[in-house]
């Protein structure tokens, strides 16, 4: 076996140009594949961090039915106890109680269905960074009566400007329709104009007063010091307060689940296509090489080398070639990813529209150990695919015919 390995290795380097080209193809293929995977990861993480940072936070607590039914009476039960539990827990960095209502925003021109999100200006600012999306006016600590913040898209739809009034209409605890005038204190613009069109922000005390007459809380968003604690904290909360339902960021956002699932699938599909193309390139080259070497192989068989050994030798040549190329590709991509994960990729050149939509043009790629493993598996599969057929062809040679060539 050891001898065969040595022979294969020497055979590979008998044609440095040919082997060099194949190896270069393998290196480029694996390198680019891993880089792409890392880049997709980076984009994804950026999006997740954005969602967590601006609104979602790490854990949210609701009435168990609230996220589906959104009834005003479905408030968090024992809210004070939950809040004091959270303020004592060391994993918690900050939290923000929110009062929510579904309703209609009316301007003199037209009306639009909206979600009204009431929040404590200071606690919210400590928990999320949504205030950074403000493009005009002030955050909710504006001294005017009943301040409201709305998205640029909604403001345009309703033809409203900061300083003007709008009427919000919603149900109170007794299912009576209540309406109140709010003053537009500011305009925000998030990456999603759909979000901007469907959400308005008010102070929770104003909304609580109108909905319930006293403080009421439908949602508690919790920011942690470490994102890894989310599962543990959610299950602690669920045991401690069985009447409420705590969920982690991953459970909360269908968008995150969609992105991470779909992004992963696409990366693997593309990787597989590249690897298949690669292995067919190798296969054809090896096949061509076998035919060129018929004389040599025929000679080997005639002087008594067993066909199994010839088979193994040819297999080894393709395998060793692919694997050493892949290894170099892995090493190269590991270095590239390491470098880029510090420095980041500046994508503003590729898609200038991104920044306009609030995306940070800097992406920091990374690749997890599991992905390296999966990509290795694909590479090994490709290598096997490329090596079996030429090896079969080689052993089928007729030694008498072959050495005559």
């Amino acid at each position, binding site marked *: 076996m050891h001898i065969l390995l040595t022979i294969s290795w020497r055979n590979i380097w008998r044609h440095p140009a040919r082997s060099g080209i194949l190896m270069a*193809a393998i290196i480029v293929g694996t390198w680019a*594949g891993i880089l792409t995977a890392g880049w997709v990861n980076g984009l994804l993480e950026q999006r997740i961090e954005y969602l967590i940072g601006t609104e979602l936070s790490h854990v949210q607590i609701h009435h168990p039915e609230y996220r589906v039914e959104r009834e005003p009476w479905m408030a968090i039960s024992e809210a004070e106890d939950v809040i004091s539990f959270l303020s004592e827990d060391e994993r918690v960095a900050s939290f923000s109680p929110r009062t929510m209502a579904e309703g209609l925003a009316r301007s003199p021109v037209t009306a639009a269905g909206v979600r009204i999100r009431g929040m404590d200006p200071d606690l919210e600012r400590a928990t999320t960074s949504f205030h950074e999306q403000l493009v005009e006016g002030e955050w909710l600590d504006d001294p005017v009566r009943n301040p409201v913040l709305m998205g640029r898209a909604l403001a345009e739809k309703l033809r409203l400007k900061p300083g003007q009034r709008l009427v919000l*209409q919603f149900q109170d605890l007794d299912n009576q329709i209540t309406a109140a005038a709010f003053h537009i204190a500011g305009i925000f613009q998030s990456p999603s104009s759909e979000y901007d069109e469907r959400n308005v922000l008010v102070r929770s005390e104003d909304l609580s007063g109108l909905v319930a007459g006293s403080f009421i809380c439908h949602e508690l968003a919790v920011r942690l010091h470490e994102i890894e604690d989310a599962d543990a904290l959610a299950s602690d909360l669920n045991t401690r307060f069985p009447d409420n339902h705590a969920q982690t960021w991953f459970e909360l956002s*269908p968008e995150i689940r969609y992105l991470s699932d779909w992004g992963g699938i696409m990366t693997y599909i593309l990787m597989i296509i*590249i690897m298949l193309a*690669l292995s067919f*390139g*190798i296969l054809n080259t090896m096949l061509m090489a076998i*035919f060129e070497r018929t004389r040599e192989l025929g000679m080997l068989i005639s002087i008594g080398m067993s066909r199994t050994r010839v088979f193994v030798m040819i297999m080894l040549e393709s395998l060793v070639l692919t694997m050493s190329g892949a290894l170099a590709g892995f090493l190269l991509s590991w270095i590239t990813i390491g470098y880029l994960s510090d420095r980041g990729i500046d994508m503003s050149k590729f898609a200038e529209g991104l920044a306009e939509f609030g995306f940070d043009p800097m992406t920091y790629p990374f690749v997890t150990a599991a992905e390296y493993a999966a990509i290795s598996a694909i590479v090994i599969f490709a290598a096997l695919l490329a090596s079996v057929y030429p090896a079969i062809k080689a052993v089928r040679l007729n030694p008498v015919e072959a050495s005559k060539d």
Partner: protein
Amino acid sequence: MFNPILMYLKLAWRNIWRNRRRTLITVSSITFAVLFAVLMRSVGEGSYDQMIENMARFHTGFLQIQDRYYEEEPSLDNAMPYDEDFGQRILRSDDRIDFIVPRIEASMLVSSDEITRGGLVLGVDPDREHRLNELRDNLVEGRFISAGDGSLLVGQGFARRLNVTVGDTLILLGQGRFGMSAAGKYPIAGLLQHPVTDLDNQIVYLSLPDAQWLLSAEGYVTSLLVTPTRTRFTEAVAELLRDQLADESEFAVLTWPEMMPELLQAIEFDRTSLLFITGVLYVVIGFGLFGTILTMTLERMREFGVLLSVGMQRLQLGFVVFLETLFISILGVITGFLVSYPLLTWFYFNPVRLTGDAAETMLEFGVEPILPVSLAPYVFYNQMMVVFIIALLVSLYPLLKLLRLNILDAART
């Protein structure tokens, strides 16, 4: 009569069949290159088509005719007049127009006995709407509505939020045209499961005449959706309608990229990243082909040497080798098409179904969990051209080698 070009062609043709095995390997290299390039592009384009189709079907349609102020100020006051004559006129203006779908749309408060929610009320022509997005198939309970029957359809999620079911009555409350108050009571004919979860939680369908009456907008719609026979005709049809309606300045014609700029942005962004990966694929393909051609060249060194020794000119020989490459590349690209077209057609009609978590989340977004492919002609044409060019470039190598060949060395190998 002696025709040198014909002779070269003959020589090249015979040469490639002299060593059938070698030719077949090279041709198959190119075939696979075309197959993979087409496959990658087709999967990419297919998923964009699916995205566009989904958004168009369930949101804005491919193109819309609206009042020219509606885009800026989507209020019923900016609705456009519409009747069957106008509809027929639009429909007949070009045979690339498949059908039209009139809609009137308003945000209203929707109340059951105890609960009130903001909802989106859509007045539609039930049959035409079904043609656009197979609405009828989404019915989960009760019956479908028909024109002017005074009943409504409601999203399943919305019905749950309002705690109502088929047979219950909903009250719609809001503002009609020119500030008229709009209020009406309608029994629920059926529940729909709208594929887009977000809409499922707020949508109410009325028949067009009922909605027009409710909103004091008889003879008006907020938009007329025009569906071209093919997605790619969208721009052309829009141009044509713009011309047609140029005299009637109250109308505006909008296409989906104008109505959903974010979707276009997302697609363009995705395309950019796919372009990078496609570039990588080309490099890989190029190297693979180069490996094959290189080996072939080495194998033929002796032959070249002999030919040169017996007096064939380098340029003549070079020309013959070039013709061989040309034949092989053309053959490879054609077989590549012959292999990839049926394969992709099969995938087009029997798409790969995704399962597991990814499929669930896709359904939540109203996207069918399949891996769609595109059969657009340009996908094939572009990739075949690219691979053909790569093959020709790679084949420059034997030519270069030939021009610098040392006859004595070559004849000795």
